[in-house]
């Protein structure tokens, strides 16, 4: 009996805030149906806004369909998104990597495997004969990019790991990692060599500008991108598939 009365008061409290109009229930149901119908008709007859750049999309005739048809339509990844790794090539097409093992050492998931070797004609720097990233082990933390002293590994592809049919497919050898335009710096040892065909200043045209400018950075004209600082390359998943 006590339980029953408690239950009754609980119910009474939940209905106490309703006005007489809401207690009639039918008009409120009709209003709810009006909302549903408005969405239905707009979405049925209107054209869908197919732009994936905005979150709150509005098509014609009140179409508000928010679906993104995934593989065909994709939301753009935000700036600084850590995508699939790539090894940056230098001018002669070889990787900038000097096989220093910094990335493999810092990697918390231990997903980078490097085998180093030396150029037979060039005793100055090493190079990787094998540079393998196991994308299934990678936790996409970006520490390898931070650790790299040569700007040889980047995660600026804005592509996530494409699907594969086998686990072996997710182990990326050097051929699948070496992508994008060549990049050189004045400090690169292969540039400083006397027999280098490219003079030093050509490799870093922004150097002098940065040295002599005293104005705040924000007031500067946008700095011209040098020949060896190409714009951000655009990748697709298919670039990284076997």
């Amino acid at each position, binding site marked *: 009996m006590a339980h029953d009365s408690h239950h009754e008061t609980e119910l009474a409290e939940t209905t106490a805030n309703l006005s007489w109009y809401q207690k009639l229930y039918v008009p409120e149901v*009709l209003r709810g149906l009006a909302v*549903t119908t408005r969405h*239905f008709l707009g*979405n049925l*007859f209107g*054209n869908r806004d197919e732009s994936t750049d905005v979150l709150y999309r509005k098509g014609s005739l009140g179409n*508000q*369909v928010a679906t993104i048809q995934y593989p065909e339509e994709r939301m753009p990844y935000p700036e600084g998104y850590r995508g699939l790794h790539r090894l940056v090539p230098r001018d002669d097409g070889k990787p900038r990597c000097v096989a220093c093992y910094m990335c493999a050492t810092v990697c918390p998931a231990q997903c980078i495997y490097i085998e180093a070797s030396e150029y037979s004609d060039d005793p100055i720097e090493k190079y990787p004969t094998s540079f393998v990233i196991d994308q299934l082990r990678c936790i996409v933390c970006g520490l390898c990019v931070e650790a790299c002293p040569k700007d040889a590994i980047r995660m600026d592809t804005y592509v996530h790991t494409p699907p594969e049919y086998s686990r072996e497919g997710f182990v990326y050898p050097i051929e699948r990692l070496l992508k994008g335009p060549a990049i050189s710096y004045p400090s690169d040892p292969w540039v400083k060599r006397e027999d280098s065909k490219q003079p030093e200043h050509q490799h870093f045209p922004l150097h002098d500008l940065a040295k002599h400018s005293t104005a705040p950075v924000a007031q500067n004209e946008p700095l011209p991108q040098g020949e060896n600082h190409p714009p951000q390359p655009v990748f697709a998943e298919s670039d990284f598939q076997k």
Partner: protein
Amino acid sequence: MRAALISAIILGLIAVIAGAVGVFYLVGGALGVIAQALFGAAYIGVAVANAHTLLLVLVMILASLLTLAERKWSALMQDRIGPNRARFAIPGLSKLDLAGLPHFLADGIKMLTKEDFVPDAASKGLFTLAPMLAFAPVFLLFAVVPIAPVVTAADIPGIAGLAGSLGVSAAFPVSLHVIPNLEIGLLYVFAFASLAVYGTALAGWSSNNRFATLGSIRAASQMIAYEVALGLSLVGTMMIFGSLKLEDMTAGQSAGLFGGALPAWGIFLQPIGFLLFFVASMAETKRAPFDAPEGESEIIGYFVEYSGMRFGMFMISEFVEIVVLSGVTVAIFFGGFHLPLPPSWGAEAWLASQFGSFGLAVVLGLAFVLKVILLCWVQLAIRWTLPRFRYDQIQSLGWKILLPIGLGNVFVTGVLLLLDESMDWLAIAGLAQLIFVIGLTALYPSKKPTTIRHSGRAASAQPAMPHGH
């Protein structure tokens, strides 16, 4: 662009339905002639033809398309696109989503090829019987619904020639109605509607699963509770039209109110009766907001142990119930197959004079099917608008609200009928109720959810007004 395409598709579908109605008449007439030649009784052939064309073709196609429509329409109501990834692997078609149409074929294939699992502890016989008992009664309900008017077979093109070549008379009547002239009419509807409870109750009980049993108990008590309100809600219309036969009710609704300015539809004469009937029969279909027996978020429902096509029977019976409920509602409250025009305009007589009685019958049959589809849409819209009622709310709505209102409705209808035989007073009362509800819906200031109450104090307290002021 898309609006024009969708409109064109809708017009095309209307043409297809009109063609189907014509074909139904042709099949009925042809089988009638053959039965006349074989047995000397044309009505056997017409009944067999109608049982196949109306129940197996019309109702089943509508119901199975509703399985797709529920997903597609609910998506549109919720700003989504809905299923569109199933494709026909045919060059040229593989790029088109065809409004998700392949999904309903894929569903059928999936249902039929899935493992047919029977739990060890289940009662095998009842477990097999339950889906049939759930499906068959609702399927049979449509038999008493008149879809299109009676036409003499000789008026259907081609039938007179067929009858002449067989040497029999084509003077028998053909109508799209499986059981015409059934005196008990609505009682048949109530009787078979109440049989459906056995399917759900047995499904839960024979599964030997606690959740299923809970669901079936909920279903049984809910369906039995609402049968009372269901029966009472139609007493008013029985009194008005003076018959239990649905074709008599349809014929009665072709009359005019106020000298023909308004068709004498049940919705104008009995708006409260309509509301009670619609609510009670939605509760009988066990769909949201009355889907506590299924309650997929709390108990999975009485069919939790069913898989494959056995589960499919429960699901399709739900959609058949939607179609049947729409058909019965149209026949009783929305003028049956009559056009939604004032009778004083004489549209039906004009159509008959222009296109003959067969042309008129096809147009009326088309009007009926379109009304049914519209009401199916309303039911789905209600299902995707309202959340599920709590169980005690379902019972108190049935016993404490619908039942007294139904009794009062019978009393008021009786008094108004006694006072005025021409039903104008009844129509005035009905229109007043409709105008009251619609006006209230449109004009009552809606409460905007702008203030958030962080404490128990009233939300309407004036801001920036100190209390000591």
